[in-house]
């Protein structure tokens, strides 16, 4: 489990040395045309018990707003080390965010869930905007979000 956490935290373009295989996964998040400024999004993984494992990406650069990503904030206590080096800009309404990771095979079909929390200024903070089980079967199937995310797909 420890190795998995490392794999998650190291994320981009790094093949976890111990793992037998890793594959390139592209995550595409399309935002709805909600009215308002750019949304903060955070992508993180929990295990089958719902226990936080690690963060993949934080879209939004000002850490003082991270408390508005409720699920992630509760899981991590707002620990900035969890997102160090893996933050980017917030995502505007109607825009899409595409990210590529080399993820260990061990992550798939093992009960792990990928979560996205979202928050827009003056709007509702959304925990679990998206919750999608990381299974081979789900790859390539778009999922729609609860409020700000039009669709999410990983493949």
């Amino acid at each position, binding site marked *: 489990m420890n190795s998995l956490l490392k794999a998650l935290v190291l994320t981009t373009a790094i093949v976890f040395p111990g793992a037998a295989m890793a594959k390139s996964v592209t995550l595409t998040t399309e935002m709805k045309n909600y009215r308002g400024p750019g949304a903060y999004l955070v992508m993180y993984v929990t295990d089958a018990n719902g226990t936080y494992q690690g963060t993949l990406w934080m879209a939004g650069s000002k850490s003082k707003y991270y408390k508005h990503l409720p699920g992630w904030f*509760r899981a991590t206590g707002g620990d900035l080390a969890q997102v160090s080096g893996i933050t980017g800009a917030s995502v505007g309404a109607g825009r899409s965010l595409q990210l590529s990771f080399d993820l260990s095979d061990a992550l798939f079909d093992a009960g792990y869930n990928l979560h996205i929390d979202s928050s827009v200024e003056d709007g509702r903070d959304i925990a679990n905007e998206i919750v999608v089980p990381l299974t081979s079967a789900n790859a390539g199937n778009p999922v729609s979000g609860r409020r700000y995310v039009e669709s999410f797909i990983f493949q």
Partner: protein
Amino acid sequence: MLRALHKYAGLLATVLILILALSGTALSIIPAWEKLQTPVQSESDLNVAELAARIAANYPAVEQIKRAPSSRITAYYFAGGEPGSVLIDPATGKGIANYEPSPTVQWLTSLHRSLLLDDAGRLTAAAGALAMLALSISGLFLLARRMGGWRQFFARTRGPLAGRLHVEIGRFSAAGLILASSTAVFMALNTFEVLPQENTTPPFPTEVSGEMGVSPNAIPVLAEIPVSQLRELTFPYANDPSDVFTIRTDHGEGYIDQGTGELLAWQAPGSWQQLNETIYMLHTGRGAWALGLVLGLMVAGAPVLIFSGAILWWAARRSRPRLPRGAAPSKADTVILVGSEGGSTWGFAGTTQTALMAAGHSVHVAPMSRFTPAKYTQAKQIIVLAATYGDGTAPASAKGFLERLAALETPPSARLAVLGFGDSQFPAYCAFAREVVRQASENGWELLVPFASVNRQSPQDFASWGRTLGLALGHKLELAHEPAQPRTHRLTLVSRRDYGQEVQAPTSILRFAIPRTSLIARLGGRSWRQFEAGDLLGVLPKGSNVARLYSLASGSRDGFIEICVKKHAHGLCSSQLTDLAVGDTIEAFQRPNPHFRPANSQKPVILIGAGTGVGPLVGFARANTRQRPMHLYFGIRHTKSDLFYGEELPKWKDEGRLSAVNIACSRVDERTYVQDLLRRDAAMIGDLIEEGAQILVCGGREMAAGVAGALQDILAPRGLCPAQLKGQGRYAEDVY
């Protein structure tokens, strides 16, 4: 330094500040608008538990309840797979209308804080706020300097419209602009996390009961919180036993178990957080709508300040001439030192330099602050042209001059000529130039010509000093300087009345037609503008390009241009004017003179004039259709000869345009002067002045001095003095 900061910050940030100020003003209305839109909460003791229960009854899928500082309550719910938000009437818990944040307000907000450009825009906007702060503070100090100290900060302003507007609006807006820009800078520093950040959220409880389903009105903690303190109540996610109620109020933030209704954690905001919130409130007016409106109104002054400031800057820039290339300090036989604040004195220096160079001198021109007598080895004369700033301090380009002069052990061998520039309406007229002369004579520095002064950039004063200087230098010197030579119009004489031949003072009242101008000329700003009695008519006589100024005895509403001209024995302009026949033309321009006219009120006015000086005064009486009390004191030689306007004066008295006409004749057996009449009426004059009367004096210098002396004596027993009235703008002189 202060002036340069003010100027460059203003020029650089012009567009930025315009955007920020206009959007800020528009946004300032929002809190008050929201307040108006929000239903008044009738139950003052309504608590959060009850409110949440009411809303939950109407919206079972409610996720979050928010209360804005305007007391507007919004509920967010999630039903049928669709999120919704609705404005709530707290009395019923029912929705009033669907809530959509206004796109206009969002756009304005985004424009205001980030110019629609995200972080780069935020930094730019923050720089704009910083510039505004620098401008406001430097502006305050400059203003205090200009008014002659902080005590006179709110004294009456004088001068051209752009300058007055800049001062008046600046005084009104300064506090608001400083508050808005300093809070903006603070908020920007906070946004970019330059300031320390404080965690305001309590740690999430590690254990919850795992039960679900407590109704909000069964939670004792919520029942203790009045709705007025509520900020946000977030319901637990449906079917998630690990989740909790999250409550945020004015006094802190906490978690409540969704099974037991117990308070699991609570954190009160630290003092830093409270400071943050106060600053946010001060800047946005959210939670203080009245303050928001006032702030918005003050900030609305910023565009006016920007434009009037730009006009002032441009005018100062344009009036600064390109000086001819002068000689090195060690080579020049003549050194001209300039003490200028706004830049206009440099124009006079340029004219002096050109004329002296044409007469064969080698001239070095420098600001007074660069006074280095040791270098002036060849100098025969040193000419100081000095303006005065505020209450008599050195103007910007003369800093340190007096100190350096005082420190000289022996005065320079070159002789000194000092010409002061100022406005005789100010109490400290040419005070700095006089101080230079005083210091020079204390040092034993020999004067080339006596001290002279130029009142309100008068070309005549300047030309006359030039002749004196020429005499002393042993050659002819004509100094023709008209600052920013105005465009002249051709005026046609329509009638004339002649007086005074019998007393060897031929004088004429000349009436010209107002020139018609084409639409194109009017659009281009080249038309004959509106004018009032007391404004000045500049006449360019044939054979000279030095304009002579005459006070206007009519306003544009009278439909003609009238002046009163006395023929001087060798006067070029007055001879030409008094020789005009009906139908002849002159070249003339107008110059506003807003200091010299009755203030806008119904308070009494005391008009004192002698000879042709009665011109503007009768103009005031002619325009006095509202029968404001006006007392005229008019000094002439003899009623049979030079009683100008003798036909109109009794008529105007009957019509109430003049309350009293007092005439003093100096060429009769019992000779009297206006000041004698003032002393005769001392009691009444004193009473009028105590009532708030304004005094307007027009005529020769001697008469004006006599009048000032008489008024001094009249006012002294009442604890008043003419200087005091001048300071309040209630005593104005137009003297020649």
